[in-house]
């Protein structure tokens, strides 16, 4: 009976999903409702979760509900705490959901909605969720150890160190590219700059409140904070219109970049309770709230997708980022389909809180499906905009010029029509001077969200409010990632420098703290600054680097997963991690080599350097450089980017070699060789009774 019910329910879901996918894929001409995309996604997730996640849990990993998890074994009420699965799901989802799934799909929308939707769905189901679940499983079996630790114990000390350095490089690129997204959103926008600046005094007030007035009252202080933030958004409109304060908050990209570096430095050296922790409350709750609001908004407004299913830009000539659909679509949409960064979170606090191994599918696989759905919603928000608006917002000045007339003329050449007056009117509607050339994802998403949310509450009159609400929510959680990431990087650098100078390891030492933080900030600050002054918008060169780095880390995690399956003598199921690993290797290696060696100057860093070098030798100055010094700087940037790409390629190739060697070695031995916590003391009935009593 139960089996028949399951068959009927999932049969219906499969049919509904197939219809929705057919509508999305086959529809030509008139626009389709975004609800079809939502339905297709939900059906795919339901089937994947019910069947594939269960297959992974039972056959591939062999989860054992009787085997005690680290939380049960080391229950100390502090770090290791068996936590109800719904609570842990929320925690894990909040930790993995960030700006990545919001920005990537918006950029990828230049190729049309179809490639993005398909990769987000297929990638999440077969690669991303598998990676998250596998890492959570491995870490749970190893007392909640980190990814780097597991690479060291399962693959050897050299791959362990390489993985650690790789993680540091990725952190630097992530911090730079996220900071760049914020700079792109706030440049020349007094309203946005004011509201984001206002979060600093608001957070400090909240910090003092939780420290001295009402210690630990997070809920209460967060409500006060959110009210103050809404007042700041409303106040921002008046500030922007003010003849004195308006210009005072109108900052250029370079000024904002320098301000962000100074801010990142200060925020990560002062005590965390003063600024970092309270900002973390605001950004976490606002993030969850905004994601829910967007989902509800899409269902109520049921907007139509305006972007074509596939645009001509799949050949790599698009203005938003350069490079053809393969491999660059799979690099541009990283988080949302598969994100290596999740491996760091799935091997962080989550395994220390897991109550039972049988909850691994829900937490590992399920939370990633939710993240994927966030990416789908971001893609919807970008594609319900008029494509002409989308391209005017996301193309660099070098392509569309710096005024509404030139932008309208440029997008008309691509077949999308809009009048300059309409572009100017939209900018006025959202309370900005101009919306042109704001690549980076955040502003496009904000216009899309404003479009959807103003359809629910407030109509056109509230559009400017919703736009700045969306900008604030993105900027807020990106800035929290930047400060917290700067601190994480600082500890990693202190650890690495400690090898040579043991004194650097003292985390309480003021000198070590300042030196390591300054080093971290200058590393990401360098990439941020070069991105801001880049005439092609910076996102063009930095986002692919970030994507390559992130997918490369995912490949490393999946290689580790494959090695572990071989060492468990479960190699006949190792395709589950090996296939996505191979796909990611193909994508990252192709993209990496293209970024290095492609003859097109828009794609290949070395070709770009050569073009400027040749011009310099011939005595010419190429835009945007104004002096020979500028030319030299551009060439140096190209070489730095090339070196970084080569570094990523080196990391991933060595991991492949070590991974294959470990698998072959494990195959020759006829018993399991994994380094797991022994399952010897499985839960006895007595323990179980204790456990129930405690709960």
């Amino acid at each position, binding site marked *: 009976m139960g089996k028949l019910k399951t068959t009927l329910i999932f049969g219906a879901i499969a049919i509904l999903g197939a219809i929705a996918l057919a509508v999305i894929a086959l529809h030509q001409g008139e626009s389709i409702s975004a609800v079809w995309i939502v339905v297709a996604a939900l059906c795919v997730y339901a089937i994947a979760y019910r069947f594939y996640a269960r297959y992974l849990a039972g056959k591939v990993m062999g989860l054992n509900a009787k085997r005690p998890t680290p939380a049960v074994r080391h229950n100390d009420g502090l770090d290791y705490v*068996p936590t109800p699965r719904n609570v842990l*799901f*929320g*925690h894990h989802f909040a930790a993995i959901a960030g700006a990545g799934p919001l920005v990537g799909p918006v950029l990828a929308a230049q190729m049309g909605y179809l490639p993005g939707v398909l990769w987000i769905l297929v990638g999440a189901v077969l690669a991303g969720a598998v990676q998250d679940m596998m890492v959570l499983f491995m870490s749970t079996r190893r007392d909640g150890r980190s990814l780097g630790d597991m690479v060291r114990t399962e693959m050897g000390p050299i791959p362990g160190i390489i993985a650690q350095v790789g993680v540091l490089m990725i952190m630097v690129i992530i911090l730079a*590219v996220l900071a760049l997204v914020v700079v792109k959103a706030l440049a020349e926008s007094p309203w946005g700059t004011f509201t984001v600046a206002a979060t600093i005094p608001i957070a400090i007030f909240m910090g003092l409140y939780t420290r001295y007035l009402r210690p630990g009252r997070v809920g209460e202080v967060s409500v006060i904070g959110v009210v103050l933030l809404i007042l700041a958004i409303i106040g921002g409109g008046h500030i922007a219109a003010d003849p004195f304060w308006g210009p005072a908050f109108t900052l250029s990209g370079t000024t904002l970049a320098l301000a962000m570096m100074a801010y990142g430095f200060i925020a990560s050296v002062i005590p965390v309770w003063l600024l970092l922790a309270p900002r973390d409350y605001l950004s976490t709750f606002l993030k969850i709230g905004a994601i829910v609001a967007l989902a509800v908004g899409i269902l109520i407004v049921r907007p139509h997708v305006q972007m074509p299913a596939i645009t001509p830009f799949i050949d790599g000539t698009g203005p938003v980022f350069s490079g053809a659909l393969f491999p660059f679509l799979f690099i541009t949409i990283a988080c949302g389909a598969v994100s290596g960064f999740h491996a760091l*979170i799935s091997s962080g606090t989550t395994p220390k*809180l897991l109550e039972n191994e049988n909850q691994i599918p829900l937490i590992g696989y399920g939370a990633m499906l939710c993240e994927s759905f966030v990416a789908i919603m971001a893609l919807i928000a970008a594609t319900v905009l008029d494509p002409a608006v989308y391209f005017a917002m996301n193309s660099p000045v070098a392509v569309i010029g710096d005024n509404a007339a030139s932008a309208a003329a440029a997008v008309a050449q691509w077949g999308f029509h809009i009048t300059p007056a309409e572009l100017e009117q939209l900018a006025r509607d959202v309370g900005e001077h101009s919306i042109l050339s704001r690549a980076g994802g955040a502003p496009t998403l904000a216009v899309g969200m404003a479009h959807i949310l103003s359809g629910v509450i407030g109509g056109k009159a509230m559009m400017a409010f919703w736009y700045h609400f969306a900008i604030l929510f993105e900027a807020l959680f990106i800035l929290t990632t930047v400060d917290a990431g700067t601190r994480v990087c600082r500890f990693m650098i202190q650890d690495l420098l400690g090898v040579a100078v043991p004194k650097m390891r003292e985390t309480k030492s003021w000198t070590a703290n300042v030196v390591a933080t300054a080093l971290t900030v200058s590393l990401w600050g360098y990439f941020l600054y070069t991105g801001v002054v880049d005439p092609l918008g910076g996102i063009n060169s930095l986002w692919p680097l970030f994507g390559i780095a992130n997918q490369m880390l995912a490949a490393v995690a999946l290689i580790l997963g494959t090695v572990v399956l071989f060492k468990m003598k479960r190699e006949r199921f190792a395709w589950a991690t090996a296939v996505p690993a191979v796909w990611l290797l193909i994508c990252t290696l192709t993209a990496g080599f293209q970024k290095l060696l492609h003859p097109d100057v828009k794609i290949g860093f070395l070709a770009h350097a050569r073009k400027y070098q040749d011009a310099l030798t011939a005595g010419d100055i190429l835009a945007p450089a104004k002096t020979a010094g500028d030319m030299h700087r551009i060439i140096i940037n190209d070489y730095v980017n090339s070196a970084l790409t080569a570094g990523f390629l080196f990391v991933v190739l060595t991991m492949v070699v070590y991974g294959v060697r470990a698998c072959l070695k494990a195959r020759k031995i006829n018993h399991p060789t994994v380094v797991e916590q022994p399952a010897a003391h499985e839960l006895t009935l007595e323990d179980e009774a204790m456990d129930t009593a405690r709960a």
Partner: protein
Amino acid sequence: MPRPAPASPEPAGGADLLCVCRDTLVRWGKDARRTASLMVGQPDYEVYVAHAEATHPEQPPLDRTAFFRLHEARRFGAGGAFRCC
């Protein structure tokens, strides 16, 4: 997996049904609060106190403020939580 026992095994009659509804709502509220605090790195204080009393009755447990500050410092300390991009 330890789940809270249902409030009443046999919800017969209007009053009992009301009780069940109320208890469910209270439980959801509690879960939501726990989830929200864990999202910002603060585990449940009551669970900790119950655990400390059961395992180390001779030591006084940390008070609420000390518990809060310990987790605040840990979340952003060395080896602290990664936040995703």
